[in-house]
């Protein structure tokens, strides 16, 4: 691993701590004797620092992980893909037209989710109470909701 090309190929892994002790030692010993590779590392260092210092840390959206999780845990096996058959232009056009007809049909006549009454007031149900009891487990966290379960007078409509 003594030639410069091999060393320079490993510099990005070295810079991001992906090498084992032995490889790190070899690279450090080479760099101490080779000004070209040392300059290459310096350049890489400055570029990566620029990226690290100017790129905000972003968390992937919750939905991304949730989607992956759901697909991993889905007990129903996914269908095999229709690869070769679908590549035939006539079949592809036929499938496209059929899909369009189904979508139009569903849009025109099918049942669509709709809001039934907007935010109407209702007595606290068992789901709400289960939620309130869970939410009130910490002193700050939604404690009022938890206390309400026990404390609200029965004539207010909350079952207790």
């Amino acid at each position, binding site marked *: 691993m003594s030639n410069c090309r091999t060393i320079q190929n490993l510099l990005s892994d070295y810079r991001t701590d992906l090498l084992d002790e032995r490889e790190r030692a070899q690279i450090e010993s080479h760099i101490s004797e080779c000004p070209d590779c040392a300059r290459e590392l310096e350049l890489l260092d400055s570029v990566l620092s620029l990226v690290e210092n100017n790129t905000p840390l972003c968390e992937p959206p919750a939905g991304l992980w949730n989607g992956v999780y759901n697909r991993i845990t889905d007990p129903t096996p996914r269908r095999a893909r229709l690869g070769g058959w679908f590549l035939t232009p006539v079949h592809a056009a036929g499938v496209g037209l059929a899909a369009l007809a189904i979508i139009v049909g569903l849009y025109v006549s099918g049942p669509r989710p709709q809001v039934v009454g907007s935010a109407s007031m209702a007595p606290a149900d*068992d789901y709400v109470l289960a939620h309130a009891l869970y939410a009130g*487990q910490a002193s*700050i966290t939604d404690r009022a909701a938890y206390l309400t379960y026990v404390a609200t007078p029965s004539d207010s409509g909350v079952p207790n």
Partner: protein
Amino acid sequence: MKSRRMLGLVLALVCVGAGTGLLVSRLRAHPPPVSAIVVSALMQEETVPYTATASLSMPYQGRMVKSTISIIHSHDAEKISRPSKGDGPWSIKDARGSCAYCPKSNRLVVNRWSSMLTPEERGRLLLANYDPRYEGSERVAGRDAYVIELVPKHQGRASKKIWVDVHSQTVLRSIDRSCDGEERGMEITDIHYTAGADKAAFTPHPKAGAKTLISCKPADPTTLDSKVGVHVTLPAYIPSGFKLEGRHLFTPPCGCCPICGQLTYTDGLCVISVFQSRPDTKCTSTCCGPKAARPGTYRATCCGITGSGRITRKDKTIVVIADLPPTELRKIAESVK
């Protein structure tokens, strides 16, 4: 000579005044470490025993409902009861769960939960999603308290103002503002710090013949689907800042609704519950909430504690409960596959 003395006295007074002013301004400029107080208050359940009387107020069906409760708090256990002519309802909770007793129906509902987050992680999550602002100090129940406003970093979220005991970090008063601006509050009117309560105070003693129902218990993700009877999926959409905190098996006390999988998410302060079950077409009890008119419809309700949304589909029923705007609840419910 006399005028020199007078001048000296005046100068000395000016110096003392300036020094005092500087000291006061420095003290005001350096409020207490608010984040540490908030986290400490969040975790104080495990440290400071006390007995207290508190008053609660909350909006309910267009009016303000008020109530008085008594609290016995000892390390990680707490008993809350409502004084009544006969036996009032009570609830006991500890780190593992709670049991709530209703003398009217002679029913003891037991909930056991597992949190995937430690109190420290909850504290960090709270500080990541809320900006704690020190607003001075006041006296509550005869105790000095820091006033701290928890300002949400995300729009359309609930907020909270807390009065935290300077010495014990107990939350003496709190005002919860829901996402639509409604307020509910809790204020301790009388508090006595103790060395700790007798364990017997936290032992449930329901009346003879009481019906006990284990309503909620932690669920193993590998067996949750088979117990519920549907694939319990994570919603594809969850508002930013919320983290998955627990998976539970919830048995509705009505006895006729199917068993649900309950997923809980938290942003450190608020909780989202997502219930999923087989379609509940047979249940006619109103205690399980108003039903959607027909399959495929979405129904939004508000009960004064929090908002809820329900979708009844052919394959499963989804109920989402959280203190979030109705549009957000619907978005979460509809993102469940």
